[in-house]
């Protein structure tokens, strides 16, 4: 500081400006990073699972593939419009939906639950074995924003597989890894 104190007033001003400028850049960068990371979690439309469940819509109405094959499926824009052509059309979120419908674009939903590429999960097998949706997905009907609730790692899967009657068959690596 003694060296700084020994500087002329002009130099001191420059030094202070540089420090202030540096701090400002860091703050701006932080704001951008935080905004981007939170935006990454944000869905293109603020879909509210809770409201749909409260109105008596079953999981399978929209996730129609769940009992038929590996993938539960995300409903098409057409399916959303089946109701929302008339229901809650004044809501800004539904107007976004109408935008996708009019532009004939799919909604770029962000994935909520993800498995690594070397893990193969079959929804229909689990439905056939009477595993409830909530056993892995939690109480989605209570969620305004869908979030993963359990850590779906290998331990989580095998804990449940080990309790089944045919646990030897369900313990085989090829059940999930192919």
């Amino acid at each position: 500081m003694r060296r700084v104190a020994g500087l002329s007033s002009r130099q001191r001003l420059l030094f202070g400006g540089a420090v202030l400028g540096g701090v400002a850049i860091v703050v701006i960068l932080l704001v951008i990073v935080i905004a981007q990371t939170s935006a990454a979690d944000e869905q293109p439309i603020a879909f509210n699972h809770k409201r749909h469940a409260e109105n008596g819509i079953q999981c399978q109405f929209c996730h129609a593939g769940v009992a038929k094959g590996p993938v539960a499926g995300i409903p098409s824009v057409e399916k959303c419009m089946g109701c929302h052509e008339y229901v809650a059309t004044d809501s800004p979120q539904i107007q976004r939906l109408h935008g996708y419908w009019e532009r004939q674009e799919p909604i770029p939903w962000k994935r909520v639950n993800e498995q690594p590429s070397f893990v193969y999960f079959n929804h229909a097998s689990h439905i056939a074995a009477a595993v409830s949706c909530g056993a892995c997905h939690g109480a989605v009907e209570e969620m305004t924003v869908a979030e993963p609730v359990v850590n779906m790692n290998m331990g989580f899967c095998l804990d449940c597989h080990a309790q089944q009657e045919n646990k030897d068959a369900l313990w085989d690596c090829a059940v999930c890894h192919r």
Partner: protein
Amino acid sequence: MAEEQSNGHKWTMIVDADKCTGCQACVVACHAENNVPVSSEDEVIRGRAMHWMRIERYWEGEYPNVKARFLPVFCQQCGNAPCEPVCPVYASYHSTEENINIQVYNRCVGTRYCGNNCPYRVRIFNFWAPRFDAPLEQQLNPDVTVRSPGVMEKCTFCIQRIRRGREQANIEGRPLEDGEIIPACAQACPTDALVFGDKWDENSRVAQMVPSERQFKLLENLGTEPAVYYLKGGETHVGE
């Protein structure tokens, strides 16, 4: 690792060497089904070609009466597999449910002991990251892992099709039917030289074909108990 008939299936392939015309449709089908990259000329020259199955060619007879004989060779899914006990991380393991040899890619650390111990030379090591030039990446099979560099891979009898078939039968609450599960190679074979099924199902086509007097196995004297049976005709000397 002993195979017990009480559980699961004994998946078996029958290769009729007399019916094989060496057309390589099975090889192409295998590449497409199992996300096997196509090797460059340079890689082939270095002995690092990627194939889960290959057609071995034999010339028979003296000129001008020369005949070409073909033998499709892929993982023999040994009942007593030399690749299994040498794996330090159990990535090569024997499925007690499917009774075939399974490679768990995400477990493999790439020691290559299994490949060196395989007498059939059907295991392939990923020396490089797989490359699928556009538009080939559009046709990757989503049911099969794209293997990362540094892991060993091999024919799986199309385990993804086996599992899908079994799961579908289970969902529909019915027993699995013979012929419901067909690996890509057998599906593509125009001469029906490849027949696939469960040998423990007495009524399966495979179970009825196995006791043939034309039957032989590759390197049978090693005691590896392959699950692939070859059939040959009178004139054929392949496998002798």
